């Protein structure tokens, strides 16, 4: 049984397309529901991509850009996939900017993960910490595919859209990533 129309529960069960239509007709509550629905996943993905500072700023920029160009949003792709695509571009832009400031991005990423791990060591269990280190050692493409598949449960077709690759290539990246991470855990 569906919740009554106009209630909070009903709004939470509305599809993204319906909420977008409400937002475009001037209902600002629709934006709040969409943000609440997708922001945590985006923040998690940004963090798994190695972003440690100002994650909320990245998420905010993602939503501002997405809502600013909703007219160009194609209904045949999910809003969620589109948001992840925008966020990924912002993450890459930020990394390029950081790379210009510092010379060695890969080293920075490793350091960032270690610093993050050091801070969280008191609260995180050992397996999770090792998984994060192993994921940080993956290639950027493997890491993105692995994260989107494992932490977000995204289908290969959507992952391919987000990372700008093919479904088959994403499948290969995922299985290679699983093999590398599990191998790292077994060796430890």
């Amino acid at each position, binding site marked *: 049984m569906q919740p009554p129309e106009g209630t909070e529960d009903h709004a939470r069960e509305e599809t993204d397309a319906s909420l977008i239509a409400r937002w475009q007709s001037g209902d600002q509550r629709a934006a709040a529901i969409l943000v609440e629905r997708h922001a945590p996943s985006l923040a998690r993905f940004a*963090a798994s991509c190695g972003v440690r500072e100002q994650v909320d700023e990245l998420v905010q920029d993602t939503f501002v850009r997405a809502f600013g160009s909703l007219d160009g949003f194609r209904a045949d792709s999910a809003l969620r996939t589109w948001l992840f695509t925008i966020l990924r571009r912002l993450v890459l832009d930020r990394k390029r900017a950081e790379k210009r400031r510092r010379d060695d991005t890969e080293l920075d990423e490793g350091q960032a993960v270690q610093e993050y791990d050091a801070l969280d060591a008191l609260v995180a269990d050992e397996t999770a910490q090792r998984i994060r280190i192993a994921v940080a050692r993956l290639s950027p493409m493997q890491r993105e595919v692995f994260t989107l598949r494992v932490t977000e449960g995204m289908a290969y077709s959507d992952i391919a859209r987000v990372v700008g690759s093919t479904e088959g290539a994403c499948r290969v990246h995922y299985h290679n990533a699983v093999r590398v991470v599990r191998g790292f855990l077994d060796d430890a």
Partner: protein
Amino acid sequence: MMRDCENGDVRDQLPEYLHGMLDAETRALVESHLAACAVCTEELGFLRSARGAFSTPEVDLAAVTRAVTAAARRAQPTTMGAAAGARRWRVARWQVAAGVSFLLVGTISMQLLRQQNVDGRAEESMRDSLAMVTPGVLPGVLPAGLPSPSPMPAASGPAAETLTARRPKAAPASRGSAWSDLSDEQLQQLLNAIDGAEAVPGLEPEARMAPIMVPAGRTGRTGGEE
């Protein structure tokens, strides 16, 4: 030692199973496989750990919503400005279309008028040509008593006046006569007179003849020149 399950289809769907995204039928299939496959059960445990390994950074959802709303509010005047611009452009397009249509109609009208003038001049030219061969214009060509033909039907207007003015009054054309009234002999005389008449010199300048250079030491006649 890590092993891979031979049932790749089920193994490939473990992330979806973990996130509860499978339909009931596929979920039952995966669960029955998991009950008998230690490798996939182990991989599912790994995926569950990996999923929980990444904590979600805190995001101020209200701040994000406020930023989205503020950005949309800032963009609104621009959108309205764009709409106004589009309206202005639509009006301008109508004006341009009207102007082009006016010019087109005007040009076509001018062409038609010009064409009529050209036709009028051609008619006048034809009348002049006929007037040239009338007995009045070529006095003495036709024998006395030869009826003057009426080259054109009764005309009016400036062209007709010009034609009348050119016709000598001393030899008025007899109205009602025509070329068909002339006898064969008279026609032959008229044709002879036309053949013998001096042609009007052309307006084009004469072609300059390049001087023929005679090589030094060579004697003799060149090209008919003395």
